[in-house]
């Protein structure tokens, strides 16, 4: 087999030309503003990701119906990361370099955020992370619109201790989130003169909690604090109820319900568990009712709305407000506009950007699972992200990109 030199050169130059043709053109002013939605729409975490993407579609539609931003329309570019962490790197690169989006909303697990955050830092693309998480991310390129431990755990722990007693047994998912949140639980339990008897960690694929339920019984805590995450860990609540423990030792959780898990558990398994979030579908406010109606009209059912979905919707509104104020979708202009401390009224109440931490000041409610719903028990207005604020000051150190961890 032989190949003529001329043929070879022809072929390779054709390939080069084809590749070069894929280069993006410089954007014109009237082109839509591209917004990337990078979520897990399939695989293990799609329970979170699918409705988050819907929230972006709804927000974009509303923005466009009211005339767009800076006289441009908004266009959502949707990526499915399939619950695979390397996909976040890959699609982060694609969004930033090939599709040239103005902002990325996305990331669910802390692992996914940490995979995509350096990519977007490096290629200078604005990033919104709209998930409740363990706190501490200090990075000028990212805005975190979800609740952090100082906002939720700080009110949940004393409330539960007042109801049930001072001896706490913590169960947490064995990754970054669970490790850090369990330290916060310990801190707030100690601050309220209580005691954490034991903290057990479980990798995300553990589904058999028999031995753990035995250990908890032997330890006799006043209540159990659960920071378990994902589908496999739901078995814990089932086995706990099957062992008849639910009526003996009560439970609070920092994670249950954030992905509507209360609808996956039967009432017998879920009722009575205490939670703390910014949002519940049961919030009795005009803003929430209107939001639910708009969602119902667009998607037909509101059953898939949860904490992270509403945080995503609110993240979109915040970003839009930033663009309106800046008069353009340019990254630095929007960051500076957001840093002026702007607020919006979302379904979960008033949300204000904290300029020093790029986190949000927001309302938090103690909720109780009742008949597969999250009923509001007590509300706390406008809680600042004091956990991140204790370690992070982006006004003083704009080049910081660390995620700080609490030392207890």
């Amino acid at each position, binding site marked *: 087999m032989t190949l003529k030199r001329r043929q070879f050169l022809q072929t390779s130059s054709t390939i080069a030309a084809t590749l070069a043709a894929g280069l993006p053109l410089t954007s014109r002013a009237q082109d839509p503003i591209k917004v990337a939605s990078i979520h897990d729409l*399939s*695989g*293990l975490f*799609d*329970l979170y990701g699918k409705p988050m993407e819907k929230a972006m579609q709804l927000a974009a539609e509303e923005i466009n119906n009211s005339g767009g931003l800076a006289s441009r329309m908004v266009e959502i570019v949707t990526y499915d990361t399939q619950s695979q962490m390397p996909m976040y790197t890959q699609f982060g690169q694609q969004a930033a370099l090939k599709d040239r989006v103005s902002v990325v909303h996305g990331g669910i697990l802390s692992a996914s955020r940490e995979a995509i955050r350096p990519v977007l830092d490096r290629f200078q693309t604005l990033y919104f992370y709209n998930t409740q998480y363990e706190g501490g991310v200090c990075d000028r390129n990212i805005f975190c619109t979800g609740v952090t431990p100082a906002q939720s755990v700080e009110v949940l722990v004393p409330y539960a201790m007042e109801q049930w007693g001072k001896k706490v047994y913590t169960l947490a998912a*064995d990754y970054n989130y669970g490790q850090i949140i369990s330290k916060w639980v310990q801190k707030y339990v100690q601050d309220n003169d209580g005691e954490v008897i034991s903290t*057990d*960690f*479980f*990798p995300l*694929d*553990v*589904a*058999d909690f*028999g*031995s*753990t*339920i*035995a250990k908890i*019984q*032997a330890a006799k805590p006043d209540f159990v604090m659960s920071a378990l995450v994902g*589908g*496999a860990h*739901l*078995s814990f609540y*089932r*086995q706990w*109820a*099957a*062992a*008849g*423990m639910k009526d*003996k030792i009560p439970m609070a959780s920092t994670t249950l319900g954030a992905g509507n898990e209360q*609808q*996956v*558990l*039967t009432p*017998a*398994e879920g009722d009575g568990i205490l939670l703390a979030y910014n949002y519940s579908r049961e919030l009795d406010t005009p803003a929430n009712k209107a939001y639910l109606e708009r969602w119902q009209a667009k998607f037909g059912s509101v059953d898939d709305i949860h904490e992270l979905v509403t945080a995503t919707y609110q993240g979109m509104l915040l970003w839009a407000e930033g663009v309106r104020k800046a008069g353009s979708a340019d990254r630095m202009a929007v960051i500076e506009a957001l840093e002026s401390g702007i607020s919006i009224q979302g379904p979960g109440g008033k949300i204000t950007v904290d300029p020093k931490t790029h986190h949000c000041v927001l309302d938090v409610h103690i909720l109780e699972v009742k008949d597969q719903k999250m009923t509001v028990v007590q509300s706390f207005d406008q809680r600042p992200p004091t956990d991140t604020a204790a370690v992070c000051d982006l006004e003083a150190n704009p080049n910081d990109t660390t995620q700080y961890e609490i030392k207890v």
Partner: protein
Amino acid sequence: MDLAVFILLEIIYAIAGLVLISLGLAVVFGMMRVINLAHGEFLMLGGYAAIVSTQAGLNIWLAMLIVAPLTVGLVGLIVERLIIRFLYGRILDTMLATWGLSLCLVGLVTLIFGNTTTGISTPIPALQIGQFQVVGYNLFIIAVAAVMLAGLYALLRFTDWGLIARAAMQNADMSDALGINPSRVYMLTFTFGAALTGLAGGVLAPLTGIVPSIGATYIAKAFITVISGGVAIATGTLSAALSFGLVERITTLLSSPVLGEVALLIAAVLLLRFLPRGITGRFFRGRL
């Protein structure tokens, strides 16, 4: 005292769990030398069959004990006709094809049910042992595992079908000459193995809940248990489940679930290295 009883129950439950998830795979491997890597998904399908039919209003016991095995048995029959029968004697190709099948089933079930399904509550109340409360349903699982194991042994040992099946597996040509159709025997055996698996999946569902990818948590353990057990179906599975269940549960109680699983895997690696034909390749030879 109640602690000892409690721990003993936990260990027996761990062993029963291993028997339950492995037995269907053991039938198919022991008799047909086929390793079905879609076995975990057969368990998953059994779970869905039980949960979906319970939610449709069927009695939970009927759903778990009748509907689940029938459904998965039917799936097994279809799979055998469409895929497995072309690959007899090619053990690696069967593994790869069934691995592909396992991915397909996960994808298909996700397509139909999505990634979340509301579970069903266990139909047996909790049990008080001294100061401990245990999952009463665990006793039911132990009983099901024992019945399945004993039933299978009796079936192979005492019935005509068992005799024919064993004959066909040992020497297909000879049994063919004697008027038995080996292709038919293979088909029925695979279907039977799938039905056993469906039963196990249905019975486990109330305790674990169900997601399309749940098979992945079972397949490695089942695979390892069956291979380590060796060729004898009932004795092999039981002896491997005994050793692994014991190692896993004791390590878990002493440390954490992760180290429990790691201990199980290390035990399997060492066992296979030093007994390369599995437990029943060395001991209990000629048993079933």
